[in-house]
């Protein structure tokens, strides 16, 4: 039984490396497979064969990936499109989970205090003047807020801020800062949400128009 399977589809060829197989022998087999194709150096440059390596439940480390890339580089007619795995490293998964986490915070954030969150934030507490809450995702405000509310830190422009924001000093989404004054505070009310519009400035819309 072979450790690797060669498959062809409309995007070119896929080489599936069995996740249970010994990697070194599988890599050797892959080399032999490619050599066996007896690829001649043709003069037709456009006839490049594209390969994708799929490793299933195995995650290759950088050295392994580089050795495959180096190997393919020796054949000008072969192009290695990608090395894909069905899994991610624990670290990366933790990051993804963190990014999509919804934090719930209550209590008082006082002057001079700043709370940072990864992911979305549901803020039930009170935000005092000169205090700041900062989330990498969207922010949902339910309590009394006076300070600075930052969503989508530092550059997530699709983050939004929900809730009654008319008393905040500043509303920040990604890199856009809106100073809330007596003139525009009536725009920021409960039942509305603030987002970054196509002109890259902060706009307000009714909640029912919110689309994720």
């Amino acid at each position, binding site marked *: 039984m072979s450790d690797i399977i060669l498959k062809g589809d409309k995007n070119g060829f896929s080489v599936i490396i069995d996740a249970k197989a010994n990697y070194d022998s599988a890599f050797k087999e892959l080399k032999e497979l490619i050599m066996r194709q007896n690829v001649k150096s043709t003069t037709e440059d456009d006839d490049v064969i594209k390969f994708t390596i799929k490793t299933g439940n195995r995650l290759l480390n950088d050295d392994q990936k580089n050795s495959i890339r180096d190997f393919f580089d020796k054949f000008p007619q072969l192009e290695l499109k990608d090395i894909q795995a069905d899994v991610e490293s624990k670290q990366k998964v933790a990051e993804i989970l963190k990014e999509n986490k919804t934090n719930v915070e209550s209590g008082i954030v006082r002057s001079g205090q700043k709370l940072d969150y990864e992911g979305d934030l549901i803020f039930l507490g009170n935000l005092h003047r*000169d205090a700041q809450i900062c989330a990498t995702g969207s922010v949902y405000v339910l309590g009394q807020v006076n300070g600075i509310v930052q969503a989508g830190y530092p550059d997530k422009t699709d983050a939004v801020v929900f809730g009654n924001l008319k008393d905040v000093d500043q509303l920040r989404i990604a890199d856009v800062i809106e100073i809330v004054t007596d003139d525009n505070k009536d725009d920021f009310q409960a039942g509305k949400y603030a987002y970054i519009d196509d002109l890259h400035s902060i706009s307000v819309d009714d909640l029912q128009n919110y689309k994720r």
Partner: protein
Amino acid sequence: MGISIVVTSGKGGVGKTTTTANVSTVLASLGKKVCMVDLDIGLRNLDAVMGLTNRIVYNIVDVAQHRVVVSQALVRDPHFEDNLYLLAASQFADKYVLDKASVGNIVNELKQRFDFVMIDCPAGIEYGFQNAVSIADGALVVTNPEVASVSDADRVVGILENMNMPITPHLIINRIRKNMINDGTSMKIDDIVNHLGIPLLGIVIDEDKVIAASNSGRTVAFDSYSDAGKSYQNIARRMLGESIPLDLFNHTKKVGFWGKVFGRK
């Protein structure tokens, strides 16, 4: 073993020293053994408010630098028998001669001898403040009914909350102007208390007598005609666990005859 209580505010001029002096004297008059510690190095004035300046021989810096022991540096207030002492600040030394460890040692030693160690904190939230609050068991946060003072108090409460003191910080709203309350132009007491979110220990109105008493080296708390003095009496009694209702002077507007006839309900 007594407890140490720091009187702090963040902002200057809100009445930290006056509060320290008045609360301490009332506690002493109620039979508690009280020691006031002035940590406002270089700008000391608790001694002046108490009228004890002429009695100071050694100060807290002398103690911290082991020139004298604590008991030698204590100044006794003759008005309160053996109940009230002051450990004065130095007017000459640099404030950086004190650190958390030395202040902590002194306060812990005082706590063995006294029921209450009242620490008068310098304004600001820098070095001197850190020294003062780091060794306190509890805090009295003094604020005035104005935006700047409440904002600074908010900052201070935030810092104090992070320190997890054994006793939660309590609030004293000082220098309330009666006429502004009546006009409705002052910040409302309830709003301040709700905003800061810490228990209210008492409110003190702004009175000329407070300053007059300080100028003469006495505390207003023993002026039986003074509302502010009464407030300080109540604050000290509440600290001892008595439940005394807050006098929020819910002043009803005087309604004249025509107001009664055509008055809005």
